[in-house]
């Protein structure tokens, strides 16, 4: 029995801030930062946008492509590190807005940048187990970097949603694998406004160890090699890391470029590699194989091997595509507006 993606959708906020604008405020060397991080600009959520609103937008597009009645969705799992409420689920609001209540199971997930692929993993497993016909997995974040911190150049906003099912698939899931260790490279404790990170420790022993190990074991267990794939997509904390991961695994630039959104999108955390997958599905042809590996600090990676089906061409144009949002109508804001939008200006009365 096959299980996989029936419908997919993404959401990119319209506002952008350029890396130069942030660098200017902090006296940083913009050209060197752009080269070092492989980033040019990033998305910014408007004051009325959050993980819930972006999840609704992305999920609506996924449901349009799935061509199903939302009432048949049996579970909704939203992965995010920026759920608007500490206590009270995002999933209840999103399910209600989609018309998927009340016959539905719901959980909000959190695992730094990996929570989105976790939601996909769990939703798909329940469908595979015949617990329900359809399940929704969403990765969404309005992630924050502390003012002046290196994260401020990358932390952005976006969402990706996937309806999983057993029939009318656009992509069959051929294999999954999850790799996890206790590696504290990035964290945010209760009552802290911004996350903290261990600088360069987030690279070698954290991102690269987990992403590369997950991809290698997944390919070994599935008996595949990089040339068996048309596309690959990795978690994108900046522009550099995913390109190096692809190169070290033996993937070509051409395999990696379609899903590489971070240079102009930034790091959408839980939305990152799931959004990259949507950009791939937007252009994929029947039979294309896709390797996807997420990464979440703490640390772990979820790996998926997707095989695109004939139905893909029927759904690609049913909703707005990811790169169309990324490269379409944009509003550039200055650092002052950005600070206001992101709640970085703290009022004395709060």
């Amino acid at each position: 029995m096959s299980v996989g993606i029936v419908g997919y959708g993404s959401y990119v906020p319209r506002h952008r801030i350029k890396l130069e604008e942030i660098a200017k405020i902090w006296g940083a060397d913009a050209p060197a930062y752009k080269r070092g991080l492989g980033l040019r600009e990033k998305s910014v959520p408007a004051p009325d946008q959050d993980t819930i609103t972006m999840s609704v937008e992305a999920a609506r597009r996924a449901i349009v492509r799935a061509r199903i009645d939302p009432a048949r969705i049996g579970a909704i799992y939203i992965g995010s590190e920026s759920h608007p409420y500490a206590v009270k689920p995002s999933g209840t609001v999103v399910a209600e807005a989609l018309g998927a209540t009340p016959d539905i199971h719901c959980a909000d997930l959190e695992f730094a940048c990996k929570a989105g692929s976790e939601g996909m993993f769990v939703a798909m497993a329940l469908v595979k187990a015949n617990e329900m016909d359809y399940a929704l997995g969403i990765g969404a974040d309005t992630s924050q970097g502390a003012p002046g911190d290196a994260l401020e150049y990358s932390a952005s906003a976006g969402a990706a949603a996937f309806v999983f099912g057993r029939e009318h698939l656009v992509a069959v899931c051929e294999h999954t694998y999850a790799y996890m260790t206790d590696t504290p490279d990035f964290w945010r404790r209760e009552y802290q406004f911004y996350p903290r990170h261990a600088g360069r420790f987030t690279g070698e022993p954290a991102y690269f160890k987990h992403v590369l190990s997950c991809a290698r074991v997944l390919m070994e267990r599935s008996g595949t090699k990089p040339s068996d794939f048309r596309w690959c997509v990795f978690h994108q904390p900046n522009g550099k890391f995913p390109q190096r991961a692809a190169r070290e695994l033996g993937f070509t630039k051409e395999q990696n470029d379609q899903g590489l959104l971070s240079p102009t999108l930034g790091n959408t955390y839980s939305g990152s590699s799931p959004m990259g997958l949507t950009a791939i599905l937007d252009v994929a042809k029947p039979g294309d194989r896709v390797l996807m590996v997420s990464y979440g600090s703490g640390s772990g990676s979820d790996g998926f091997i997707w095989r695109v089906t004939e139905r893909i061409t029927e759904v690609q144009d049913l909703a707005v595509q990811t790169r169309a949002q990324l490269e379409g109508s944009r509003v550039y804001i200055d650092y002052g507006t950005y600070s206001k939008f992101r709640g970085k200006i703290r009022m004395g009365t709060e």
Partner: protein
Amino acid sequence: MRDVAVIGVGMNRWGELWEKSYRQIWTEAALEAIADAGVDRVDALYVGCMSGGLFVGQEHLGALLADQLGMGPIPGTRVESACASGGLAFRQAYLAAASGEHDIVLATGIEKMTDVDGGAATYALSTAADQEYECYHGVTFPGLYAMMARVHMHRYGTTREQLAQVAVKNHAHGLLNPLAQFRSKITVEDVLESVMVADPLRVLDCSPITDGAAAVVLAALPLKGTRRPPVKVVASAAATDTIGLHDRADLAWLRSTEVAAASAYARAGITPADLSFCEVHDCFTIAEVMVIEALGLVERGKGGEAAASGMTALGGRVPVNPSGGLKSKGHPVGATGIAQIREAVLQLRGEAEDRQVQDARWGLTQNMGGTGASSVVHIFGRV
């Protein structure tokens, strides 16, 4: 005073050693030096470390490391002179052997700097400057060396490209050193386009934050027979200068290095022209330029031309930093002075492999604390 030789050396690969503990890094280097020397005991150990407290929360290193080595109750002494801690620890070990107090002495250095973030590391390093008159005003070491560079450029016409050549040369040397942190070739353009740290110094002008240790075994001469060819400590000298840069008579001159070097040359009975190679404290590119002037390798004000001309490269008149220097090999501050001595010993034994200086006879090491408030100079020769 007795004559003293280095009879064993040890060092591990330097870098971001997140998988290894502080004591493990040190013990690996120490055991390698002891094995290299072929001795079954040491009478005392010295350890150069700038700030175990701020970097890993560990002090009381003499006792800790003697214990880790399984050699308690030998005396263990920690020596601190900022980035010159390693060089000064070696000097104390040398004096202990030369004086007749001990026959076989272990001199080591260590720093584990990457367990804290960049801000905390910068703060820890800044404690080597004058807290009241420099640090309180916000200046850090890149800023202080940038000011020294500005003065040197203004007065002597030293160019931005000439500074970059120092980094290019040391990376080319480090490429030949299997234990170096950064084994990568860089170009002048790479340096000039790297991130600005403190104008005019860019990140590729600066030595890195590093975890690492190094160790050497010294023994009083004459020896009954050693496993490896002994290398004689021909001269040992140390000197100080004002701790604050603002108190110097000349911002573009390293008086502590000049004084220590003059004393070392006199003791050794050689001149700068006799040197086969030098290992010097290139914590920033401008530092190497100023150090080779203070050592008398070039005339005052002419240091900028040395790297660009090839004079200080391997194969040049006097290779400077054949190990890759602090820039490429890495700079775990307390270990740096000992690693310089390890390199000198390998060169004089003829064991430096791809980076071997031909017919090496005299080698000089120069280790420096702060902006030159302390300098330690040693000269080594074949026995």
